[in-house]
């Protein structure tokens, strides 16, 4: 088997926000293969969102670069769709109008005889159907539950058949049950759409259950701690039972240990002990 051609190439990537002394990201080298489901995890503030925003073209790197199919990324574009955690839907548009927002679709040119436009219209209905949003097509986003809103956001991102789907904690604001449902949905979509997915999450179980590779970032400055290629069935063939399977739990443990080792947990423990010491002193004996 030959290695699939890299879809995204990240080389020597660094990012320092203006006015900050410490870089948010430093010397990141990473290849994302075509059709891969990659998860980014790491302690809070390690630069996961920054890396995703750089790939999306919403931030400019201070050093190094990112290439999509050998073309340098210089700004945002519909071939790299983004699903944000929250507040990205347009509240004045209905579900259907939100899904059809993408400007590169010919839907907006108003040429009814256009075959491309016709297929985009068809695709929008099909996507809403898959997402279980058929009944709420003409609702406004604020009439929907959080889970439904994220489904609209995903449908909107998938509309233009992006090369890459970038997701920043897309299920972070959802309850546990809704999240389980969304996991199955995103795996099925991944199988159907065959796009490359880069998925940022706080939830290690979510990362190892969904992804084929997990990248652990270490903070201060943000850098790659390690890349774990999971010895699990391909994402398209996974089922909820796997969440309790020993091999998955083993991967969860491995990744969690790396995150703990790279984050300031020990530091925090010292602070807690100091606080406990102060509390003891104040207690009258």
């Amino acid at each position, binding site marked *: 088997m030959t290695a699939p051609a890299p879809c995204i190439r990240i080389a020597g990537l660094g990012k320092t926000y203006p006015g900050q002394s410490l870089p948010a990201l430093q010397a990141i080298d990473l290849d994302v293969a075509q059709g891969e489901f990659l998860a980014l995890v790491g302690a809070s503030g390690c630069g996961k969102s920054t890396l995703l925003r750089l790939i*999306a*073209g*919403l931030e400019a790197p201070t050093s190094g670069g990112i290439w999509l199919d050998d073309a340098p990324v210089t*700004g*945002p*574009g*519909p071939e*790299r*769709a*983004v699903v*944000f955690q*929250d*507040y*990205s*839907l*347009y*509240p*004045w548009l209905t579900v259907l109008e939100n899904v059809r*927002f*993408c*400007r*590169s679709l010919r839907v907006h040119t108003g040429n009814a005889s256009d075959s491309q436009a016709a297929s985009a219209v068809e695709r929008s209905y099909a996507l809403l159907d898959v997402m279980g949003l058929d009944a709420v097509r003409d609702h*406004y*986003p*604020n*009439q929907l539950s959080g889970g439904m809103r994220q489904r609209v956001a995903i449908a*909107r*991102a998938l509309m*233009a058949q992006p090369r890459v789907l970038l997701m920043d904690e897309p299920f972070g604001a959802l309850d546990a049950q809704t999240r389980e449902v969304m996991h199955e949905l995103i795996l099925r979509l991944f199988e159907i759409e065959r796009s490359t997915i880069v998925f940022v999450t706080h939830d290690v179980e979510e990362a190892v259950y969904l992804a084929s590779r997990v990248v652990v970032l270490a903070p201060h400055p943000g850098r790659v701690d390690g890349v774990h290629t999971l010895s699990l069935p391909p994402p398209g063939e996974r089922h909820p039972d796997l969440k309790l399977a020993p091999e998955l739990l083993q991967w969860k443990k491995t990744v969690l240990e790396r995150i703990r080792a790279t984050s300031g947990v020990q530091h925090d423990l010292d602070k807690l002990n100091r606080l406990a010491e102060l509390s003891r002193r104040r207690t009258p004996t």
Partner: protein
Amino acid sequence: MTGVASFWSIRGHLGNSAYLALAAAGFTTFLAAWWMLAASGLVDPVFLPTPDGVVRRLAMWAREGDLLTDLKVSIGRVLGGFTLAAVMAVPLGIYIGSFRPVQAFFEPLMEFARYLPAVAFVPLVMLWVGIGESAKIALIWIGTYFQMVLMVSDNVRQVPMTQIEAAQTLGASRGEILSLVVFKSALPGIVDTLRITLGWAWTYLVVAELVAANSGLGYAILRAQRFLQTDKIFVGILLIGLLGLVMDQGLRLLHRRAFPWLHTR
């Protein structure tokens, strides 16, 4: 009782009919207090007419005087000055709220200008444009424009960055982002800004009509003072209040009609 409990709960719910009943009670209390004070004889009727005296004067003004002309003239001036200010302020506000260089250039200037006392411009305006219609329009414009620009730019800055970034990743051009996202997202706030500044436009209209006019409600109030017609002064003041209230409610209705997504749940 849940009714009583929710009545006084913070940001609690109040039914439509209860709201209307309380609003009517508020007005009734005000009228009753006014009537009692006027009827008690404690205050000279020259200073405080009775409510029914005011209503009679209103009828007389409408029947024998030029109430309708005065009303039309005043409403025309307010809408003229206000529309001119809005048409000029909204685009600039959108640009200030969207582009940092535009903000840097205009915002401090506007902040300065809005503290210039509009009323003190009256002599200048009369020197520049005389006492014709343009004088009233100019004063209303001076009194509302700068505030409007700053408030609209604030409305625009409230647009969540995520909405703008989502549009960028969906292939929208800069112009499309401004017209399809920033403007649409800020529009309900802009309508609220217009509703609030419309109230100020009325204030400056009266100022202009008090000092430099020979028609309109403000001028009528001034003339009534010369003839010690306190009841007519009252009619003028109350009419202006009522007109403001009607326009305000009109814009609120427009808000509910034009932005259903804010009012459906």
